[in-house]
């Protein structure tokens, strides 16, 4: 059976992807030694576990709690806040921990990151509370 043009295109695309990926694997295997491969493999595993088990598990728990304890008018504001605040927090882990800071370089990590994060978190909580109260009152009046 002859493949349709669309299917042929997908096969070609898949083959290109496979070759590109293999090229990357060859680069890693030829330019790093087995000790380094092992560390990359550990990072691969830890990264996937950190996301698929820790972060996803945490999020499922938070959503279950939110579904049980948050009244419906509060849920949309809380979800929006969780997406923006949560992803921004993940993206700022290196500056929040200041792990790369050096005593001999005052131009690096030179902002009050933790204080800013607490202030941002406080603002987010207040915004969710205001939106939740306003929406509760509105649905009450409509109901």
């Amino acid at each position, binding site marked *: 059976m002859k493949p349709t043009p669309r299917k042929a295109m997908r096969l070609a695309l898949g083959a290109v992807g496979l070759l590109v*990926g293999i090229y990357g694997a060859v680069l890693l295997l030829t330019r790093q030694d087995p000790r380094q491969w092992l560390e990359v493999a550990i990072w691969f595993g830890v990264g996937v576990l950190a996301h698929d088990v820790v972060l996803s598990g945490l999020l499922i728990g938070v959503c279950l709690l939110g579904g049980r304890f948050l009244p419906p008018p509060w849920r949309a504001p809380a979800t929006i806040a969780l997406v923006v605040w949560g992803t921004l927090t993940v993206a700022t882990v290196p500056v929040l921990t200041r792990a790369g800071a050096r005593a001999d370089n005052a131009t690096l990590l030179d902002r009050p990151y933790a204080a800013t994060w607490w202030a941002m978190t406080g603002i987010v909580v207040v915004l969710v509370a205001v939106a939740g109260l306003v929406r509760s009152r509105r649905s009450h009046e409509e109901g």
Partner: protein
Amino acid sequence: MTMRLAPPSPDQFTSRLRSPAVAARVGLWLGICFGTCFVTGLISHYAQLPDQPIPFPTSPSWGYRLTQGLHVVTGTAAIPLLLVKLWSVLPKLFEGLPLRDVRALVLTGLERASIAVLVASAIFQLATGLANAAQWYPWSAFSFRTTHYAIAWVAIGALVVHVAVKLPVIRDVLTSDIDATSRDRATAATDTPGVLSRRALVRTTFAAAAVTALATAGSTVPWLRRVSVFAVRTGEGPGGVPINKSARAARVEESATSADWRLEVVVDGSTAASLSYDDLRAMPQHTADLPIACVEGWSAQGTWSGVRLVDLLASAGAPADRDVAVTSLQESGPYRRTTLPANFAADPRTLLALDLSGEPLALDHGYPCRLIAPDRPGVLQTKWLSRLEVST
């Protein structure tokens, strides 16, 4: 009552938000970010190669600043996109395998393997890139540059395979209404009262990506400095330019401030000139506005003054159209000795800078003398120069 810990089954995920309609819309922009990161990463990698088949251009002087700024900003913006994308497809992680049908088992297994590689390499790239941008190196064995480059090819390859596999679904859901249910999982039928619509979730995700980018991009976009409260740098520093590696970290404090310091110019293995700081000051001085643009994604424009490299090479009797080996006072490190390609050496904007913003270079900026050339990665703008070598 007994508690049993078991992985969930896909049927237990009933939210209509976890759907191909959301995954494809967020995934499209995630793909655009990854594609931008890949292309700009290739440019950065090429710019750092010691031997370039086609010389990296010296113009525009802000070219590398733009591409590397884009690299780090799009990589950072990809974090919210990746997290929501993975959330939207999480039920698939728990789907069973078609154990009875060998052909289906092989195909499903291959697809699952490609997804595993894609997810692991995507998380790896964003995590290592993010850490590197904050000068945090929590790994001990692998080389960041080599590994980030190799895994980039793996991630892009796996991404292309993923798009090839999913193309019919992607095409279908992107051309249908976002609330269409024809491609949904059968059990994804619950609208939790009060929770977002699909459209609102996608918009929130894009907003999160924009907020993350704006909150960090001030390291490379000066007018965002006040907004970028989570940027790795404020952009402040001696002469208005931040520092990557200090003189203390490079262990040059003594040699760089010694009265015996000389800049050696070596032509064909023999010393053609040995210039003191005062000798350099006595030569014709020129000024150029050029950026420092680091691989870590921060950049800053500086007004540099000093001796033109072409003038210095001419006075030492060296030809202007040759590669120049540039050596720093640093005693170790991969960038102690680098090659300045001939086209950079011949560019009249390339300076042996003595001043920044009208003041003598700070020790941490490369005093007594540093190289500054247009459109060049920051790590190759050698500080604390000690020797220039040319072969005719």
